[in-house]
């Protein structure tokens, strides 16, 4: 009878952020859908009430069905039968529950039978599902791909595919190949246009494809013969009902075992072109990846939550030396740091989701009418924030999720190493989050622009100006001083005018910005709800120590130093 939404008031807090007023008004185009759809909201309060109630259903399904199934799914796993995937029985049950509850096309417009929710409540649902079962969220969360179809596909394609997603058909995005992992420019899967049949045919192999046997797949393929780079790639949609793709095998993985990671063989698989030729990687995959990265950030936060709760419960129950281990400083410090990291990554997640919401909604409105100049400017500004914050959120929350899973096992001691407790699974599941959809190292490559263009600094200055309760001033003073350290470090690396020097320190610089931003966000959260004070105080201390240590590292670093780190290839 657990409810993973109702039992976590932090979620309701983030859902009720002041910017939601703007997001909902934009998303609902001033509530015009209520004339056409009996489930459309009447006004802002009604919309917020709907998100709250629907998330309560998500929380119920997670508490009553998905979480209890997680252990069985981890043991059973999916299997390949006749070239197709059979999910573990618990996975099938989870999908059915979410389909019956109408939770498959959460962000899609109502005309395709979607719920037309903003990204924020959708990401919150992903946060909740991830806490219940990190592997399962991949299958359910691939409804993200429908968002990409909704952005770039033709009206006919949208009519054809989007209602099917809302009815419960699952999706996949087929990008990676044996020789094209992080470097997607080298994708080789061949797309040839069959003049006689008037369709594109796909041939080749894809690898590491999550839910590769999904009903509807977006496929990145080389449509321009003889090309070798990203500009020869186009995006296709493949419908499983057409046939032509078989699953050769499912990978044996460390974690997220319930999520089938497939090797796919395309043999004259018919597919439709999405959008414009040659734009596959440059435009569509970038959009797809940004959505997916936000999804992984949500997954990371959900797994962090699960790890923290397991550790907290265990530390309260476990008695040693005549008392509960939570009473020992060594243990309670770990727990409070876990909670601070959890809260920090969650507040960064929802800040990012709000930025994405505003700009994506403007993008959709621009398809309906010409935007006013102020609207266009605002869209561009939020898009910039979304671009800077998405890799930051994904990178940091996935690292924190791993750290929290590690500490959760540590708090369990020897028991945590055994299969008897959920932390063992959580620890394995956490590991992939900092790897897929771009490793942390690649998130830094995307995020460093936020450092070099002054983007993060601009946002930090905005946070700095906020009205705060007097008792929170001390945190601001610390953060102003840390911002000086950050600026000094950025200047030093910039003045060296050397790309390798910049690459070498990139992660340090991005993390410095990240610590300051998250610490500000927690202070702002505390300003709105005092229950975050603990985490704000703990994280402010962490931020100070971590930013200063990086500042010191960069201060003492020179171009010549890099030689001590380099290897011959």
């Amino acid at each position, binding site marked *: 009878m657990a409810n993973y939404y109702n039992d976590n008031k932090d979620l309701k807090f983030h859902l009720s952020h002041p910017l939601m007023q703007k997001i909902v008004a934009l998303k609902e185009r001033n509530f015009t859908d209520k004339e056409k759809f*009996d489930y459309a909201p009447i006004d802002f309060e*009604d919309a917020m009430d*709907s998100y709250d*109630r*629907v998330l309560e*259903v998500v929380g119920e*399904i997670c508490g009553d069905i998905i979480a209890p199934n997680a252990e069985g799914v981890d043991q059973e796993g999916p299997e390949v039968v006749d070239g197709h995937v059979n999910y573990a029985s618990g996975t099938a049950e989870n999908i059915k529950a979410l389909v019956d*509850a*109408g939770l498959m096309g959460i962000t899609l417009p109502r005309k395709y039978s979607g*719920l037309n929710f903003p990204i924020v409540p959708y990401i919150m649902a992903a946060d909740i599902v991830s806490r219940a079962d990190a592997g399962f969220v991949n299958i359910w969360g691939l409804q993200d791909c429908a968002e990409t179809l909704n952005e770039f596909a033709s009206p006919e394609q949208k009519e054809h595919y989007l209602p099917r997603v809302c009815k419960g058909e699952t999706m996949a995005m087929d990008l990676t190949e044996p020789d094209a992992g992080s470097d997607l420019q080298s994708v080789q899967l061949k797309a040839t246009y069959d003049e006689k049949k008037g369709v594109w045919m796909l041939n080749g192999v894809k690898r590491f494809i999550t839910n590769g046997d999904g009903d509807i797949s977006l496929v990145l393929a080389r449509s321009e013969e003889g090309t070798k780079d990203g500009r020869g790639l186009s995006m296709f949609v493949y419908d499983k009902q057409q046939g032509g793709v078989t699953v050769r095998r499912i990978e044996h993985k460390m974690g997220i075992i319930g999520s089938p990671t497939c090797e796919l063989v395309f043999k004259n698989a018919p597919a439709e072109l999405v959008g414009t030729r040659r734009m596959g990687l440059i435009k569509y995959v970038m959009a797809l990846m940004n959505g997916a990265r936000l999804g992984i950030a949500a997954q990371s936060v959900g797994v962090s939550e699960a790890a923290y709760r397991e550790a907290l419960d265990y530390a309260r129950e476990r008695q040693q030396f005549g008392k509960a281990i939570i009473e020992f400083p060594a243990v309670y410090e770990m727990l409070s740091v876990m909670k601070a990291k959890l809260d920090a990554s969650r507040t960064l997640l929802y800040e990012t989701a709000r930025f994405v919401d505003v700009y994506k909604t403007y993008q959709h409105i621009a398809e309906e009418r010409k935007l006013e100049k102020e609207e266009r400017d605002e869209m561009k500004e939020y898009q910039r924030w979304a671009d800077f914050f998405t890799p930051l959120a994904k990178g940091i929350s996935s690292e924190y999720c791993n750290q929290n899973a590690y500490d959760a096992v540590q708090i369990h001691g020897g028991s945590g190493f055994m299969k008897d407790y959920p932390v063992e699974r959580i620890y394995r599941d956490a590991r992939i989050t900092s790897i897929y959809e771009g490793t942390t190292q690649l998130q830094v490559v995307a995020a460093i622009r936020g450092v070099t263009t002054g983007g993060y600094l601009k946002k930090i200055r905005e946070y700095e100006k906020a009205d705060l309760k007097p008792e929170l001033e001390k945190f601001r003073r610390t953060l102003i001083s840390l911002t000086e350290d950050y600026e000094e470090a950025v200047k030093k690396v910039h003045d060296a005018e050397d790309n390798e020097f910049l690459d070498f320190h990139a992660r340090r610089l991005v993390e410095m910005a990240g610590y300051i931003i998250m610490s500000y966000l927690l202070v702002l959260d505390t300003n709105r709800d005092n229950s975050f004070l603990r985490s704000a105080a703990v994280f402010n201390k962490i931020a100070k120590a971590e930013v200063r240590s990086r500042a010191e590292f960069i201060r003492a670093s020179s171009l010549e130093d890099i030689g001590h780190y380099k290897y011959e290839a």
Partner: protein
Amino acid sequence: MKGLKIIVLAKQVPDTRNVGKDAMKADGTVNRAALPAIFNPEDLNALEQALQLKDRYPGTTVSLLTMGPGRAAEIIREGLYRGADDGVLLTDRAFAGSDTLATSYALAQAIKEMGEVDLIIAGRQAIDGDTAQVGPQVAEKLGFPQVTYVEKIIDSTGKHVTALRRLENGVETVKAPLPLVVTVNSSAAPCRTRNATLLMKYKHARTVTERQEASEDYLYLYDSRPYLNIREMTVNDIKAEQEQLGLSGSPTKVKKIENVVLQAKDAKVLKPVDNDIDLLMKELILSHTIG
């Protein structure tokens, strides 16, 4: 086959599964304020059986009928969120203090006002009284046959229903003619969860009384969206004899309520002869277990 007209009997009950210290008042009655009000669990199983028939046989309608105070309208909404078509709240001070006999009388009279019905499905029993009497009594009062302890309604021909019964020592498949009353066990399929779209569609559904009491801004909705009006029946809407309702219609008198810890003791084996049954009855009457 044409669709079935199904009525699901549902009750709002105090959640007795997580009973705290303050669950009972000093006078031995249930402290309803201390226990959250929920949809009786086996009635949810009953609703699922009805909804499965609706999924399967187009044209089937599922209506809920619940008797209780005004707040029991929540039961109707919970049913609507899961796929029921409409519902009736039977509510009146005249029903207060009803035992199972008065309850089933009132329900049967209300059903007669709800038009043609093919199938009435109820949970086996409610977790507050555990009597398992209301379903069967409603059948008797309507003169319908009844199939109890059902785990699954297998199919319907439109004239008959085939159902699987879960009994103490096995299962039994029976076929019974419509109209019919079926009571469903907790071993039946769990009820589907609320559907997001239906939840948003029906969340403003209210009875007339609720609307009068509410200070909500959405009152203008009820004319343009008739499905948001939950039908309310009072004693004036059913043809009932006053003395068969409420306290006066309830022969059951609660003598006392006590906490009983069940212990396995030696079983008493009775022969199926009149004398043994007689002795048992006398013993039960003497101990005030019955009577």
